[in-house]
């Protein structure tokens, strides 16, 4: 029997993904402002601009720079941002009302957060892939755009039924990657995810992104969460995750276990 939590859309259980609104919008706004300020400083822009307008138009500030320069500045900015902003905490807090029912009270968060800046025409979109079973299948991806995302500016994903069909295709045609990609893209959905929302999806779904053919830049982050006690995938849990939340019961259990191990 599938039991829907009060907080999560039934879509998640039937399709493997859901688009949910932030339950703490102030926290999300603070996160976007923080990222915007770092990016603006790194690229020498006016930090007092409207973040949404500036991020959407970010590509226009890059035109005088070579791809290597842009990447170098971007990587420096991302390193600084990652060192200064606690993404895992802020994103979790912004969507906690939606996430806690899925994950339970004992939560691990990915140590690093991926910040993606995808200007129009960027030739390096994310390749079609699934995270699980290399990652834990008991894990979720939270994809948070800092601008409104739609059409090719958003990401694409296959729901659970389409993913099953795609796996069937790949099983029968393991050498035909182009055919597989075409099969997937025909069945993919490209969800409209406005700023203020997140796309939350099961790690077992195929997903990726296309070349952004809209006139605006996409700025987004993605991060993974799982329950502390859920089975891990092949990725080393200690290497990739940190403890974000723990319940009183887990702490009591750990205290007992610790005493037993020291006997």
């Amino acid at each position, binding site marked *: 029997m599938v039991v829907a939590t009060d907080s999560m859309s039934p879509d998640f259980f039937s399709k493997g993904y859901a688009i949910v609104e932030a339950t703490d919008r102030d926290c999300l706004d603070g996160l976007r402002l923080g990222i915007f300020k770092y990016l603006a400083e790194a690229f020498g822009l006016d930090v007092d601009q409207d973040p949404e307008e500036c991020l959407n138009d970010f590509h226009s500030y890059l035109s005088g720079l070579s791809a290597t320069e842009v990447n170098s500045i971007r990587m420096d900015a991302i390193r600084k941002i990652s060192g200064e902003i606690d993404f895992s905490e802020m994103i979790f807090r912004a969507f906690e009302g939606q996430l806690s029912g899925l994950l339970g009270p004992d939560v*691990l968060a990915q140590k690093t957060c991926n910040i993606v800046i995808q200007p129009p025409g960027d030739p390096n979109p994310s390749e079609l892939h699934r995270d*699980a*079973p*290399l990652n834990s*299948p008991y894990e979720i991806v939270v994809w948070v755009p800092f601008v409104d995302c739609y059409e090719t500016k958003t990401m694409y994903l296959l729901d659970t039924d389409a993913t099953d069909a795609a796996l069937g295709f790949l099983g029968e045609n393991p050498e035909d990657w182009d055919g597989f990609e075409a099969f997937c893209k025909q069945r993919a959905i490209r969800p409209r995810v406005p700023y203020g929302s997140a796309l939350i999806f099961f790690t077992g779904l195929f997903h990726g992104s296309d070349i952004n053919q809209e006139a605006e830049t996409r700025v987004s982050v993605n991060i993974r969460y799982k329950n*502390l*006690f859920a*089975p*891990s*995938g*092949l990725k*080393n*849990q*200690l*290497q990739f995750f*940190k*403890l974000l939340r*723990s319940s009183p019961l*887990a*702490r009591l259990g*750990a205290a007992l*276990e*610790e005493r037993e*191990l*020291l006997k």
Partner: protein
Amino acid sequence: MRTFYSMVDSTLGTPQPEQLSLCRSKAKKEDGEIVFYGAEEIMCIQSQPFIISKLKKTPGITDVVFFAFAQFCYGEKFNFKLLKKIVQDGIGVHFAREDMSFMTVDDIERDFLLLSAYFHSFQRRLNRGSQLIT
């Protein structure tokens, strides 16, 4: 400058030079360098009974860097007692792959829940039947 003893994981397919390279990077990150290179006896990986005396016998060692936290998880129980004993003896314990450091007993106790959950997850992984991909 802190002086490190290094312990690679004998059970892994990861070549020892690669393990050592990561151990050296971790030592450097912690403002130190490796001055003694140790290796595990494969028969003893479950409890690592040699490590305490090795650390005591090697002069000037301030820290030990293991390649992986899994080196404390090969026995039937999480070898928490050993981890705590090393730190209680005044030696910092570091893990290169996980980029984790424990300098005090409080550090270890603060992270016990995370480490214990990893141990149980690791044990499940050793039981390959429970893995989707092996």
